[in-house]
């Protein structure tokens, strides 16, 4: 790991920019020493959280920038995602109950897994709405490293 244990990236909250941004973040996090066995969890949860901002926080309004701040600690990684879009409904983190698979192929869900995956893959989630900003913090523990 290099001396600087932080990583910052921001991009406009459009699907195309977010796709590039998530790929770039994934690459940089690995270069910064993200443990291999945790890389998948972090990439998936990060992508879902950023996609939520693009699809919901800026739904129907002009997308502004999403800011992502990552900080490595000895045994964990904190990721703070900030945006100036609309707040989460009820100012609460959604519970993340997975969509039911249904009985037939036609009933299979094509969405509704985002928050479920974020809950499954993170060690802790915090959310606050402050000064017109959403601040979502994701924590990933690396119990086997260090």
């Amino acid at each position, binding site marked *: 790991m290099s001396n600087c244990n932080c990583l910052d990236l921001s991009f406009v909250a459009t699907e*195309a920019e977010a796709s590039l941004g998530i790929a770039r973040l994934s690459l940089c996090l690995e270069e910064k020493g993200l443990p291999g066995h945790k890389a998948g969890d972090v990439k*998936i949860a990060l992508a879902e959280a950023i996609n939520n901002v693009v699809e919901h926080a800026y739904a129907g309004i002009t997308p502004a920038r999403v800011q992502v701040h990552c900080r490595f600690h000895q045994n964990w990684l904190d990721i703070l995602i900030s945006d100036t879009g609309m707040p989460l409904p009820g100012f609460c983190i959604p519970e993340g109950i997975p969509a039911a698979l249904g009985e037939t192929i036609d009933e299979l869900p*094509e969405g509704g897994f985002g928050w*479920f995956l974020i809950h499954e893959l993170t060690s802790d989630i915090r959310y606050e709405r402050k000064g017109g900003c959403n601040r979502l913090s994701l924590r990933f523990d690396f119990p086997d490293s260090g």
Partner: protein
Amino acid sequence: MSLTSETTGGTQIITVHSDRIDAAMAIQFKEDMRNEAQGDNARVILNLTHVEFIDSSGLGAIVAAMKQLGNGRRLDLAGLHPFVEKVFRLTRMDTVFKLFASLDDALSAPTD
């Protein structure tokens, strides 16, 4: 997003030539799959060997692609990268699709 297709012994193999299927490409992927899988092969194998990352929108697009096949046609998935497999496992979609580690495994599996 680019897809290529070949048919062998009544099975259509559609290969995804992208390292990710995410929210930005989900709609295009669904559309491309609709165009590629217009044949009447009972079994279609989606070769994901080149795909290193998928998010829940990409997963939804693959589910939609299976629904589009209709008429009892089956979509099997082959060559899943560990991160891709994990998304299927966590969402329990591994109970809906047949997953094969490689395209060869998928092709040599007994058809039922």
